[in-house]
Each structure stands twice: as structure tokens, then as C-alpha cells.
């Protein structure tokens, strides 16, 4: 099963239920939720701009590559755009497999690639409605994705 979604609305952990429902051949389910931090009050909201059309296509390409690399029984990617408040979820990735090693590796691979390849850009909104700077790419993220080669 493959669930890929782009949406403005928040989501909950319950979204992962369809991945394992009615299945008895899945031994491991890994989820990653990326959440909006308030950066000690410096941040009132994150604004996420995206490239409609390419965002969906790139998520699908990254997921297909993960499915080529690991024997996955299910994958879910939900990514939000628009205005996101501190404490709210931004992205949810879930991977289901027979064993945990593959599920963990695939989830990390997906996150590393989404961070650096999926066309989303974050901008910080400060208190009092001040629109702040675009978030810069992190060298750690570039380094993280290089470990997967290709």
C-alpha cells in the first residue's frame, strides 16, 4: 500500500492505520513525524511554500526509489503546506516491512530525501505577524542524504 498526500490541514498518527489494517505479514512499522517548533518563542508560525505538481511527483519518485531499495509492505508520506503553528505536525512518513532494519532505513532515507529533494520552502513568521526570513538549507541535511549514494 502506498499513501502519498499533500495537504494544508493538520493530521494525526491515526493516518497510519490503513498501512497495517487487516495485515498479518508486517513485523515492523516505523513512523517519523516532523513537528513545528516555536524556537523559544521566536516563531509564531512556519509558512511552507511548495511547487504544486512537482512536489507530488518528487515525493512519488523518492518513495519509488525506497521501494526499489528495501522490501516494503507499505509506505505513507503526508506533507503539509501553508501556515503551520508551533506544535503542529508538518510531515508524516511511515514505512512497513517484515523486519525492523529495513523499515528504519527506508524511513530515514525518505526523510533525508524529502528534506533535500522535495520542493518545499519554509519561512518563519515571528510574533506580531512579522514575516521573517526563509529558512536556509542545513549542511547536516546535505550530508545526511549523501550517505545513501546515487
Amino acid at each position: 500500500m502506498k499513501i502519498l498526500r499533500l495537504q494544508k490541514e493538520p493530521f494525526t498518527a491515526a493516518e497510519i492505520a490503513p498501512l497495517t489494517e487487516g495485515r498479518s505479514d508486517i513485523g515492523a512499522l516505523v513512523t517519523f513525524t516532523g513537528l513545528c517548533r516555536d524556537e523559544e518563542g521566536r516563531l509564531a508560525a512556519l509558512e511552507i511554500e511548495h511547487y504544486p505538481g512537482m512536489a507530488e511527483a518528487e515525493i512519488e519518485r523518492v518513495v519509488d526509489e525506497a521501494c526499489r531499495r528495501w522490501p516494503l509492505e507499505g509506505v505513507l508520506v503526508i506533507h503539509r503546506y501553508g501556515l503551520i503553528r508551533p506544535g503542529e505536525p508538518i510531515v508524516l512518513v511511515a514505512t512497513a516491512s517484515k523486519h525492523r532494519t529495513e523499515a528504519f532505513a527506508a524511513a530515514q532515507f525518505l526523510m533525508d530525501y524529502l528534506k533535500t529533494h522535495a520542493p518545499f520552502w519554509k519561512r518563519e513568521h515571528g510574533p506580531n505577524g512579522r514575516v521573517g526570513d526563509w529558512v536556509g538549507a542545513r549542511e547536516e541535511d546535505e550530508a545526511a542524504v549523501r550517505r545513501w549514494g546515487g
Partner: protein
Amino acid sequence: MKALYFAWVRERIGLAEEEIAPPASVTTVAELMDWLKGRGENYAAAFANERTIRAALDRRHAKPDAPIAAAKEVAFFPPMTGG
């Protein structure tokens, strides 16, 4: 071809999208950036540091030396910060 701009590239240029018609001598993504720079100060500012700009052709990531010939849509944007 259609050109799309995102995040601070969009802001510096002052446009989210436009139709462009580069001359036949412009054959690669890098050459297209150079050509766009000549269209005004706003473009020059957006593309001042080409190494910080990423490009896509028809919604796929493209390197600076990628040929633009067959593309219907080109996009320029900063390094991505999703997830």
C-alpha cells in the same frame, strides 16, 4: 516556455511565473540563468549567486548543464527546506 519562481527567487524577481522566449543560443539551464540575469536588476539580484539556485525542467530536478530544448516548464528556486 513557462518559467516558475519560488521562495526568495520569486520575491527578488517579483513574479511567480511568466512566459519566456530565450533565443536559440540559450541551450542549458546555466545559460538560461545567465540570460535571465540580463533582463533586469531584479533578475540579477535573484541569480546573483548561481550556486545557491536549484532548477527543475518539467518538474524534475535539473543540473546546470541540462539541455532545456524539450522543456515546456522551467523552475528556479533556493535549496529545499521541507520535511
